[in-house]
């Protein structure tokens, strides 16, 4: 599996799962997800590794506007912004001279991600060609890669839905049992107005 595609797929759960709704069944999930047009949320990303006594923490903010606009911004430890808008995908990283665009082939693979997100935004997790999805009674969705090569990268993804419809509490991406990334979302706003410039301009 190509590295850049792997990188792009890694973003899938981070990007799409924020937008799903609370649900007790796939049908209910699809119904709730269909009402979400925009999302804004703060996130805290904890990287847990076997060698770490305490996790590495990153923080940032996430914006989504249906159908295909996205801003995934880290404020620490490295300031960076991933923008997707009108089919264009750009990544900027803050350097001493300011935000600088990073051009690498991996961004092309993000197109694949966008297509997936479109499906996931409609709550069609159980129809994903990449993951087997299972929902349990506690409002947790577990997604397991279908592809064996992909499974070597991501073992499984757990999504814990919040009580509030349309909001999730956290997403845990397991690379192995002792290496995982936990994304906690706070201050989530659904269907608020987001200026288009958010998806085009940096910072």
């Amino acid at each position, binding site marked *: 599996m190509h590295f850049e595609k792997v990188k792009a797929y890694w973003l899938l759960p981070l990007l799409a799962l924020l937008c799903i709704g609370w649900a007790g069944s796939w049908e209910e999930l699809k119904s709730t997800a269909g009402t979400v047009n925009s999302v804004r949320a703060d996130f805290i990303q904890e990287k847990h*590794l076997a060698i770490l006594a305490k996790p590495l923490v990153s923080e940032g903010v996430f914006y989504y506007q249906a159908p295909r606009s996205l801003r995934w911004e880290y404020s620490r430890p490295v300031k960076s912004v991933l923008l997707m808008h009108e089919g264009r995908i750009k990544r900027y990283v803050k350097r001493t001279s300011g935000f600088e665009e990073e051009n690498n082939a991996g961004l092309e693979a993000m197109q694949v991600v966008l297509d997936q997100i479109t499906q996931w935004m409609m709550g069609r997790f159980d129809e994903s060609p990449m993951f087997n999805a299972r929902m349990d009674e506690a409002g947790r969705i577990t997604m397991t890669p279908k592809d064996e090569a992909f499974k070597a990268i991501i073992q499984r993804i757990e999504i814990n839905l919040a009580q509030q419809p349309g909001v999730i509490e956290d997403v845990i991406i397991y690379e192995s049992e002792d290496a995982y990334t936990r994304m906690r979302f706070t201050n989530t706003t659904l269907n608020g107005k987001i200026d288009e410039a958010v998806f085009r301009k940096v910072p």
Partner: protein
Amino acid sequence: MNHPVRIVLLLLLLPVACAQLPKIVPAPLSPKAIRPACDCDLIFPRGDWQLLHAIEATVPGGGKQTILGLSQVSSADRTIHCVMMTLEGMVLFEADYNGAIKIERAVPPFDKPGIAEGIIEDLRLIFFAPELPKRQTGTRTRSERVCRYPLPGGGAQDIEIDSDDHWIIQKYNRRNRVIRTVQSESERAESAHGIPSRITLEAHGLTGYRLHLSLIEATPITNQTKR
């Protein structure tokens, strides 16, 4: 052999034939020197450290990519545990080094032959004092102190320190050609526990690359912080 071919061959071989290590001028201890010329290896972190860097990699063709590099290094044991991950937290490469390399995880292209060895070699160059005792010390025009160390597999390593405590490491192969340059860029005040806040590593040659390491966090590893 016709004349043009001989010229081409001569031109190709000339740099190899002529390459020699830069001269070091033997000098008595400068009264202005803060430390004697024999302490070049004090530029390296001593003890056990966990270092988190933002690494800006510039590859042939000019493409840039920023990743996070987590290194646990022990100067006494000369061991390294290294994790490289995307800003989103995906682990691209994880390996242990304790004289031999054990790869825990490597996703493409980090799984290509030689990549792990190259990463560990670069980390050893940046964080560890040379293994063998120095064979020459002195000064050079741009440097207040210079130490030269032989390398176990042949070649040499120079450590140059200027009056502001900036340092440069030059690694030479057996043919005395520079294959790596490592340079501290930060001021002493910006360094954390003597560990520079910015380091640049340049790999020379056709497949050369450049790494800018910006220190995010330096944490001493103690029994409490060990897992």
